[in-house]
């Protein structure tokens, strides 16, 4: 697999270049290397899924691309510009929607639109743009409701609308549907595919869900277990779009891809640590992650 990575690396500059990233977190017992040599090139308009066991550093990769973390070694280039701070051109959809609870759905999107298009849009244009984005995620009927008044799936829709409204060059999604029930998740995946059909965004999405990865992605990036996690294999998904989950259920290629991912996760990268140790290291890492973000 490493040969294919070097092959892509020798090519011309890509749209998004995640280049030889190492990430160390300081811990009381010395430095913890979460990522080692993560290297990935992404084309414009590509939909990439990051999949791997929990604690393997998927979120760390995403946070580095978002600019919320700084890589210890290596770096990220977006259209040949180095990423070193967060910004709206790399909008993030967080796992827990992270809408401001005191604002309505409309106002949540408005905060983003006002910040990004302050100089380029008139008030009327802004209002139309906010409403367009809420319509895109089918939330126009409840746009003046507060997060506490709408369901989890609806909150996540608003979170996506907010990210889309920034017109990002890359859309980063951190397990966007992880907290939703299976039916709502399927609805959201379909909605996301529709939006993707229309806008053709460049997307990096973290997921735990094998079906979700195969259904949505152009490429699935599978990560090895940490510490020193890196990219294990990359799987090209050449299923025709638009994709339908029903038709694909019987599709041979779909099932082959699915079993490849499953094989990677449960055979090649099976978790062998005992459970206590595993939870201990993940909590330490999560705490460290939080600390890092807070310090910024």
């Amino acid at each position, binding site marked *: 697999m490493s040969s294919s990575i070097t092959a892509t690396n020798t090519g011309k500059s890509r749209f998004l270049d995640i280049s030889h990233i190492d990430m160390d977190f300081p811990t009381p017992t010395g430095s913890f290397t979460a990522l080692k040599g993560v290297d990935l090139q992404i084309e414009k308009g590509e939909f990439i899924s990051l999949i791997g066991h929990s604690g393997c550093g998927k979120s760390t990769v995403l946070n580095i691309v978002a*600019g*919320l973390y700084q890589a210890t070694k290596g770096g990220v280039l977006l259209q040949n510009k180095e990423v070193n701070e*967060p910004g709206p051109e790399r909008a993030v959809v*967080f796992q827990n929607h*992270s809408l*401001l*609870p*005191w604002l309505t759905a409309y106002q949540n999107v408005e905060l983003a639109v006002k910040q990004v298009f302050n100089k380029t849009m008139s008030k009327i244009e802004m209002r139309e743009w906010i409403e367009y984005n809420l319509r895109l995620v089918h939330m126009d009927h409840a746009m003046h409701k507060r997060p506490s008044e709408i369901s989890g799936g609806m909150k996540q829709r608003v979170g996506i609308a907010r990210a889309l409204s920034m017109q990002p060059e890359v859309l980063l999604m951190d397990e966007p549907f992880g907290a939703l029930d299976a039916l709502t998740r399927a609805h959201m995946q379909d909605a996301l595919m529709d939006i993707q059909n229309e806008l053709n965004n460049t997307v990096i999405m973290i997921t735990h869900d094998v079906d979700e990865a195969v259904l949505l992605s152009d490429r699935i990036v599978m990560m090895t277990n940490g510490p020193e996690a890196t990219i294990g294999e990359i799987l090209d998904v050449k299923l025709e779009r638009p994709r339908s989950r029903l038709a694909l259920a019987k599709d041979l290629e779909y099932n082959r891809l699915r079993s490849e991912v499953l094989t990677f996760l449960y055979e090649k990268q099976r978790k062998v640590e005992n459970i206590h140790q595993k939870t201990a290291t993940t909590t330490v890492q999560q705490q460290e992650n939080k600390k890092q973000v*807070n310090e*910024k």
Partner: protein
Amino acid sequence: MSATTVKLSSATISEKLLAIAKNVLQKVTQAMLLPMIGISIFLILWSITAQSIQTSLGEFPGPAAVATQFVTLYEEHTLEREKADAFYQRLQKRNAAKLAKDPDYVVKSRAYTGKETFLDQIFTSLVTVTSGFLVAAIIAIPLGIWMGLSKRLNSALNPIVQVFKPVSPLAWLPLVTIVVSAVYVSDDPAVSKSFLTSMITVSLCSLWPMVINTSIGVSSIDSDLLNVSKVLRLPALTHVRKIVLPASIPMIFTGMRLSFGIAWMVLIAAEMLAQNPGLGKFVWDEFQNGSSNSLARIMAAIIVIGFIGFLLDQMMLQLQRKVSWDKSS
């Protein structure tokens, strides 16, 4: 056949009515009856105990004596107002007469200097506690926000806050009194020194809970919300205005309520010693007065102090419900 159905349905209706009546009765019991029973038992115990306490100023006042004093205090207030009105009328007449004699006469107006009544003293106390609290809030909330935002500032100031927080108002008062006397020198003072001393003491004691709660509220904002702000690249001021302030409003209000409670308690002590003409001075004067009514009048003041404290807290709670997005608090 139809007769039986009517009978049946009327039976179910009466059953339903009974259930509703039961429910209402339960609610009335909870909200009215039980508190009334509690208060009655308290009053009975109070009057029994009072009879058996003999003091140098006579028997300890029971509920009846205190109730009489409430009436007397109100009567004294109306009497004093009448006197004041009469004084101003006389003054006006005299000035008019002098003007008629000599058109160049510059009219002198004098304020009535009779003694403050109980109601005046309540008003003074409310003004003093509110101004002291507002001064504290104006300092504490911005400081708390800043401390919550900056770990360094928090580490630098936290020891100071923790040391000053438990200091009693009585310890501050002598210092404040001396400093106010030295610094606040004016021929025509806008407010009296005793007011200023009491107010500053109230501020000094009610500052800390607001600082602590605000800084905790700000520093414990969900990191996801902070990340949203970072991704949007919100400028510092917008960040505080749009994210930090609304997110920490519930905690800020908790601090404000704690502080207002403390402010009210501190005020009574401060007024006693600073001789600010409020409820504290009333209690102190009655204590020094030592008449046979004094104890009953002090008891009346205590009840009023308690009531006002309760009302102030309820007011803050209502304000919080109105302002805060978090309706669960």
